[in-house]
């Protein structure tokens, strides 16, 4: 279960060591934008050590490495891969080739380490106009891709428009990424809401993303994590209904019936699938 992903700057020990206590389902150790070029070496070693020795609890670990067109990419991978982060976030992914280039190097390092193939998954960060247009080929480029993620700040710069709280300028990108990800069978994550003091804005923004079909949402502030988790969690009513659906299906099977109805509505395969997803999520939430 990955509803919320919290960015933490890769060269800031007091944030890194407390990251798992901030309530996010996943922590993103950022080696890219949050780290100045002169401190890339220090951040890389610090993140590696945090992964190696730190207590991440039930948090998933994601490392945002530097993009493949920099000298830092391979060094970042070399440093962090031995510690088996769950995912590598690949910034500025604009086409299938970007994914394949990263995948090829990660595969090479995984082999050297003796890891099974695709131990560390990929989350391409789509933050260019070209990336948005190529979203499906990016999402479907490799079995290593577990999810795609929309980065709206760089995208709006590339689109030459102003980033607004309402987000009309990224509505197309959002819907395009959701469709691309679902078509490729991977998860999809929404861009952070960057005004950390707007408590109502984050609720609206997260609800909008949930309504469009996103799996979850990233955050640059611990203050937003609780809201994101709440918005992307099923309600008790939804959980109760999901169990009712599964009970009805079980009964129908026992009685040898095909089609069934619940509360006067037909229960078909998509409803069963969604019910099972809701139950899986509810069970995971109980463990936290």
């Amino acid at each position, binding site marked *: 279960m990955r509803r919320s992903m919290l960015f933490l700057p890769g060269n*800031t*020990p*007091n944030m890194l*060591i407390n990251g798992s206590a901030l309530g996010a389902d996943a922590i993103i150790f950022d080696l890219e934008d949050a780290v100045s070029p002169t401190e890339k070496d*220090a951040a890389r070693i*610090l993140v590696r050590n*945090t992964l190696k*020795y730190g207590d991440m609890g039930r948090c998933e670990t994601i490392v945002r490495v530097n993009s493949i067109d920099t000298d830092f990419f391979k060094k970042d991978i070399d440093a962090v891969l031995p510690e088996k982060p769950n995912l590598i976030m690949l910034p500025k992914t604009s086409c299938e080739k970007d994914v394949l280039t990263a995948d090829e190097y990660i595969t090479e390092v995984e082999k050297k380490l003796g890891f099974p193939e695709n131990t560390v998954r990929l989350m391409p960060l789509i933050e260019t106009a070209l990336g948005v247009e190529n979203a499906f080929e990016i999402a479907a480029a490799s079995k290593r891709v577990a999810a795609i993620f929309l980065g709206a700040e760089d995208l709006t710069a590339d689109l030459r428009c102003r980033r607004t709280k309402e987000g009309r300028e990224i509505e197309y990108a959002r819907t395009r990424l959701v469709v691309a990800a679902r078509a490729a069978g991977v998860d999809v994550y929404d861009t952070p809401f960057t005004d950390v003091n707007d408590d109502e804005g984050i609720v609206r923004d997260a609800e909008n993303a949930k309504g469009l079909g996103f799996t979850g949402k990233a955050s640059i502030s611990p203050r937003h994590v609780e809201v994101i988790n709440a918005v992307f969690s099923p309600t008790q009513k939804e959980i109760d209904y999901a169990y009712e659906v599964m009970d009805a299906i079980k009964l129908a099977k026992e009685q040898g019936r095909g089609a069934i109805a619940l509360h006067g509505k037909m229960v078909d395969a998509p409803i069963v699938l969604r019910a099972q997803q809701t139950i899986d999520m509810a069970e995971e939430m109980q463990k936290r």
Partner: protein
Amino acid sequence: MKVLKKATAGTMESSDAYIEIEPCDDVEIELSSVVKAQFGDSIIETVKSVLSECGVTGARVKISDRGALDCVLRARVETACLRGKEQ
């Protein structure tokens, strides 16, 4: 291997450590920390261990500890060593 030039790593922020390293024939370690009385020996052991892992046999290392956890201290010392070994 000896450190070739003066180098620094880390910050003076809380939970971090600031490391200054410079060439020296032997290993000399100077520690300032608010928890020196309780954890000084352990901090110095960690620093020695990282120097050994980095293959450093000669360096003067000054540590200004701001409550860094072991993994942070290790990272900062390793970074200083690598920077000090660069030509």
